[in-house]
């Protein structure tokens, strides 16, 4: 068993310990004093360099481990290979499309797809990519050209740094159907039923996605501010958007008008 220094959150404080890593477990010495079998890991997530592991034995315990990328990679490799998850061998391409543009050097990787409670992991010899369930926009069974043949694949649309990316999974059709159903079930909290927008609302949503601000949207669609506000309300109510900036419009008071008149005079004199 190899020992590596890591920081672990213990009693709401980050402490440094020498963690032992074996092929089927990690050992956290005092003051944590825990041995975690990878097969008892019910969920694994990553935020920056922090690995969040949920262990389920009699009760659920969450461990947060902060360490260098190299150690994290080894940890993730072992945990994802053995944890309690839906796992299958597959080819994947992640991401294949980013922000509406197909990635030119995207290629199929041979590895496994591991579905845990909080995310979908794509794991190969060189990659460990996680798509958090909350970031999944759509899952679709579709066809994609693979070596010149239209082939059944699962397309997963997901948010990545604020833009929609698409990843593909390829495996035998029977397995693909099972995976598709499993993914649909895992991500059903993101179901879009009852989320209906009319023509202008849809256009507004698309313009927001494209990066247009309120002013540009009003000009492009030729709609007044109040109408746009009402569409925003609808989008917010449906949980399709969130407020990032509140901008104000002002008009000058008499004092303000006098100020700019004086300023103009002094510039022209």
């Amino acid at each position, binding site marked *: 068993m190899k020992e590596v220094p890591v920081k672990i959150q213990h009693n709401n404080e980050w402490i440094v310990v020498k963690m032992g890593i074996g092929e089927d477990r990690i050992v956290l010495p005092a003051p944590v004093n825990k041995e975690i079998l990878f097969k008892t890991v019910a969920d694994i997530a990553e935020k920056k360099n922090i690995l969040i592991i949920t262990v389920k034995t009699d009760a659920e315990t969450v461990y947060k481990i902060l360490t260098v990328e190299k150690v994290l990679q080894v940890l993730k490799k072992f945990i994802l290979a053995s944890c309690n998850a839906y796992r299958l061998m597959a080819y994947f391409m992640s991401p294949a499309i*980013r922000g*509406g*543009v197909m990635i030119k050097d995207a290629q199929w990787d041979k590895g496994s797809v591991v579905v845990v409670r909080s995310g979908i992991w794509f794991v190969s010899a060189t990659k460990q990519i996680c798509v958090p369930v909350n970031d999944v926009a759509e899952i679709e069974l579709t066809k994609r050209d693979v070596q010149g043949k239209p082939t059944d694949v699962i397309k997963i649309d997901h948010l990545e740094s604020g*833009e929609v990316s698409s990843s593909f999974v390829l495996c035998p059709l029977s397995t693909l159907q099972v995976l598709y159903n499993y993914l649909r079930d895992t991500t059903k909290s993101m179901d879009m039923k009852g989320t209906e927008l009319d023509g202008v609302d849809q256009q507004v949503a698309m313009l927001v996605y*494209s*990066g247009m601000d309120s002013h540009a949207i009003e000009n492009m669609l030729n709609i007044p501010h109040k109408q746009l506000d009402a569409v925003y309300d609808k989008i917010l109510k449906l949980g399709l958007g969130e407020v990032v900036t509140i901008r104000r419009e002002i008009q000058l008071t008499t004092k303000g008008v006098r100020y700019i008149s004086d300023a103009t005079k002094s510039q022209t004199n």
Partner: protein
Amino acid sequence: MGKILIVDDTLFMRTLLKNILFSGGHTIVGEAGDGEEGVAKYKELKPDLVTMDIVMPKLNGIEALKAIKVFDPAARIVMCTAVGQEQMVKLAIKSGAKGYIIKPFQAPKVLEEVKNVLAS
């Protein structure tokens, strides 16, 4: 920065692309609402780059692309298409398209693709 011709049958998409490209410092030299008009405008305006929708009336985007390529083999054409039309994109690339963007667009990605194609 380039002189760009936008070919798309929906006014909304043309307006959106126009805004995105304008914000990136490009000049929109013309717009066309179908493939046939797109080819005619290309011959007339000789833009640096064309953004070409695929599904359009009269001539579709692939046919228009081929017609422009006959007129000007060095034409830089970026295909715009919806997700799920990847076969069409491949056909377009085989026919000489220099790049492709998939709807819905995000401004930075569109500008990046256009920049790459203009530099090619």
